[in-house]
């Protein structure tokens, strides 16, 4: 999969940092020509992923490192196989590994506070993949670019 580095962010595990990441990603996705609903979906997914790192991996301890790497996926329709354009986001933290049972999500029929963040990520992105490498938690997410002609307009816009 051909890609080029778009941006790399090093931040601390503080809730106040989330709005900065959202603003940066909103602009980055606009530059990549994502439609507004997809841009919001990407921003939402990264925000929810970061909130999970803060709450679960770092158990609400501040000032611990988080790294976000965003890459632009390049379209390649050659004979060797086609790749779609899009964005790949890799989040890395050094916190507690996630519990595999918690990564399954929960039923939405169960109306209660909590547990929605993972659902939002899975609903919003084309790929959500958890892993662990070199003692770090890694979360890889991909959203492919949908040509404007195929994009659907959400209710209320």
């Amino acid at each position, binding site marked *: 999969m051909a890609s080029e580095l778009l941006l790399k962010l090093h931040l601390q595990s503080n*809730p*106040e940092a*989330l*709005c900065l990441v*959202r603003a940066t990603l909103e602009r980055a996705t606009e530059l990549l020509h994502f439609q507004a*609903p997809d841009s*919001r979906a990407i*921003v*939402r997914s990264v*925000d*929810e992923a970061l*909130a999970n790192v*803060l*709450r679960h991996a770092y158990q609400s301890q501040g000032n611990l490192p988080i790294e976000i790497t965003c890459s632009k996926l390049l379209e390649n329709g050659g004979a060797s196989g086609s790749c779609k354009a899009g964005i790949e986001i890799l989040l890395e933290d050094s916190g507690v590994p996630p519990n595999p049972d918690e990564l399954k999500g929960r039923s*939405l029929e169960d*109306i*209660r*506070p*909590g*547990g*929605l*963040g993972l*659902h*939002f990520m899975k*609903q*919003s992105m084309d790929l959500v993949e958890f892993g662990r490498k070199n003692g770090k938690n890694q979360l890889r997410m991909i959203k492919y670019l949908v040509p404007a002609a195929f994009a659907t307009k*959400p*209710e*209320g*816009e």
Partner: protein
Amino acid sequence: MQIASRISEGFTIFDISGDIDLAHSPQMRKALLGEIKEKRVPKVFLNLKNVRYIDSSGIASLVEGLKASRDTGSRLILYSLSTSVREVMQLSRLQKIFEIFEDEQQALAS
């Protein structure tokens, strides 16, 4: 995030603006539960027109407020949902669980 409150006919209206995220949802939760559980206000309205962003912790606070309102026999009423709030309500399939109205006039008349 900013929360402004108004009193109308004995009911509380919260005008919320900005981002309801991990950093700010505890503030909204405290305000909501204060009206519903402590002051026992019979109807609490949330004007969400100027909410730019809401995350799952904000939705969790709304669900908690809804449960508290059911426990105390009061009503939590949402209106003028911004695009961001509407999308997240749809994603979490909660739009049929909450009382939601298009605007303040309809909400107050309910």
